[in-house]
């Protein structure tokens, strides 16, 4: 059947697949990176529960600790850690160089922006761990 309009043939307009992110590994990598946001929300809620349990007293906090030991929760937490590490690494590789370019107003090696952030991350991790473990 001819695809002619009055003056010219009609172009073919392909429709984007609903599963476009499965077509290329780079797209799937992007989808995984973005889905880390669900785990950020998940653990933020866990932290809210933890604070509520702490405020309610030792018995309630013991229940919270039991909840954290449930196999399902352990698996979710492990996934959460994996995805949030993915977020952190991709974030430090992508975002700081934008600020660096904005400030320096010329091209420069990405590492100048990324490496200090990784160092801050390491420092923050150590300091927070020391507080949580009761060293301070």
């Amino acid at each position: 059947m001819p695809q002619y309009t009055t003056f010219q043939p009609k172009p073919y307009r392909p429709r984007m697949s609903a599963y476009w992110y499965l077509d290329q590994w780079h797209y799937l990598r992007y989808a995984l990176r973005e889905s880390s946001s669900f785990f950020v929300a998940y653990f933020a809620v866990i932290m809210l529960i933890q604070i509520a349990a702490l405020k309610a007293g030792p018995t309630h906090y013991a229940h919270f600790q039991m909840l954290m030991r449930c196999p399902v929760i352990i698996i979710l937490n492990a996934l959460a850690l994996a995805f949030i590490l993915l977020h952190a690494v991709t974030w430090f590789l992508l975002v700081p160089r934008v600020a660096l370019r904005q400030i320096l107003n010329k091209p420069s090696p990405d590492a100048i922006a990324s490496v200090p952030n990784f160092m801050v991350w390491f420092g923050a991790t150590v300091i927070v761990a020391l507080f949580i473990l009761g060293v301070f």
Partner: protein
Amino acid sequence: MSSAKRSNEPIVWFLFGVGGFFAAYFLPIHIALYGLAFPLGLVRDPGYDQTFALLEHPLTRIYIAVLLTFCFFHAAHRMRLTLSDILNMRHLNTILAFVCYGGAIVGTICAIWMLAVVH
């Protein structure tokens, strides 16, 4: 000359951006310890008294409130975009925005309320 009003997206993007840094710097260690190391017995749990004493300190409460607020808004923005582009819900954009940012606001209010007074 375009007289179209500029988008107000900058405010949510800004919260998303700052939240991204907070989530990246601080969340991993919290998950690693409270979510895995303590429950699995890999590291000795400091226990209720020590943890409560830590929470009671005003600086801790400010840190947690700020961390949670920015994490909620970071997650909300990214979840909205994920649902819109990856899970093909672009046509529900307004509902998604309402649910995601609304959820972040609820989470923030919960966090600040709970942390305002601890004794």
